[in-house]
């Protein structure tokens, strides 16, 4: 297991960052190719809208 991880980090990393931009920004500063995934919680986190949507499923 550990050797697999070491092998991974021994190669060029291409990272997809989900969540806070700052994690991806830190990697970019270290010249690691990083793509920021546009993600937001369903219905923008609105409980009311999520409840309405769940009724239709």
């Amino acid at each position, binding site marked *: 297991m550990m050797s697999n991880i070491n092998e991974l980090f021994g190669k060029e990393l291409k990272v997809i960052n989900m969540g806070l931009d700052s994690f991806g920004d830190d990697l970019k500063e270290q010249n690691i190719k990083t793509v920021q995934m546009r993600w*937001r919680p*369903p*219905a*923008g986190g*609105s409980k009311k*809208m999520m409840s309405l*949507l769940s*009724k*239709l*499923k």
Partner: protein
Amino acid sequence: MVMEKINAANDKALEIILNGQPSLVGIGKCLDVVPGMTEKTLLHAGPPITWDKASGPLRGAMMGALIYEGLAEDEESATKLLESGEITLDPWHHHDGVGPMAGVASASMPVFIIKNETYGNYSYCTLNEGLGKVLRFGAYNKEVIDRLKWMERVLGPLLKEALELHGPMDLKTLIAQMLQMGDEGHNRNKSGTGMFIRAIAPHVAATSFDLQDKIDVLKFMDSNDHFVLNLTMPACKATLDAAKGIPYSTIVTTQARNGTEFGIRVSGIEGGDRWFTAPAEYIDGLYFPGYSQEDANPDIGDSVITETAGIGGFAMATAPAIVQFVGGTPQDAVNYSTSMYEITHGENNVYQIPFLNFRGTATGIDIRKVVETGILPVINTGIAHKDPGVGQVGAGIVRPPMKCYEDALQAFVEMLEKEGLV
């Protein structure tokens, strides 16, 4: 179970949209051909609005239309008449039509008549006036009124005769070709206008009109890259109207703005007739020299019917040159188009984007997907000056207010609750 019911309804709505066959079948006088039109009615873009709530460009266009009709002499008498309540203000959408920007139409104006050959329904739209000082941006000086009179006297009747010689014009094929030639059918209509002129020109030459009239008509159409917008819009309207009123469908069949409010209507809610409105947004875009966001009116016009049918902003990837007009980069245009697949029920079978390996444009906006993903439809639009009489000051990108979509979703769920389905 309810999800299957909704999805089946949406399959049906999408099938109707994709099977739509809009054709230009004639040109007539608004009073004679538009259902419910009267001499004292003004049709306008967007959801219903009253004079006191109308923004500058809409007010200017309404005043101008009354002066054009001879119902008022000047700004003062037009205002008085509009304040009196004697004039009926009604959305184009309540009369099977659409109008760009302020979208104001009055009884004497010539209108295009479009038929959805598959389902037999009709739609209507005025003829495009060109750029600069024009009624649709709220201008109403003598130059504007004189042009409208010429359109009524020469342009409309001449094109009517030319169209009779040509026969019905297949607008679906025209739009599909536009998309293959770098137009998206809302803010870029250059190739479509060229194709329209190419098709109609021999018949213009064959009309009974004077040579000078024929020259003037051809020059007028050629001077305006957006001439065909007033055909793509009603083509989309005729296509979408056939999909109105499908029970349990969550597909959007109308999006429209009156310069004060943005409104949407959903196929399966109250027969597709109920408006869900919220204050119109300001447009993020590029301004003509000498103007800035300070000068801008909020979002206005029925032209968002193009996005609702899967072209316009939804097809921006096919029109990379447009970013020089609305801002951003060609990659932004691609991103706008691809993100729209997240919120539609399907893809178009005829309107395709060569750059995306001829993928069909995202078609059939589903209110559930908009609310769940938080991705709002992208709209590619012109910016009107906030004051009447000035005209267009720029172009850019705008989105509908999320409130329209959230309110529609809530109403949809309440409707199902009443029926005991959820």
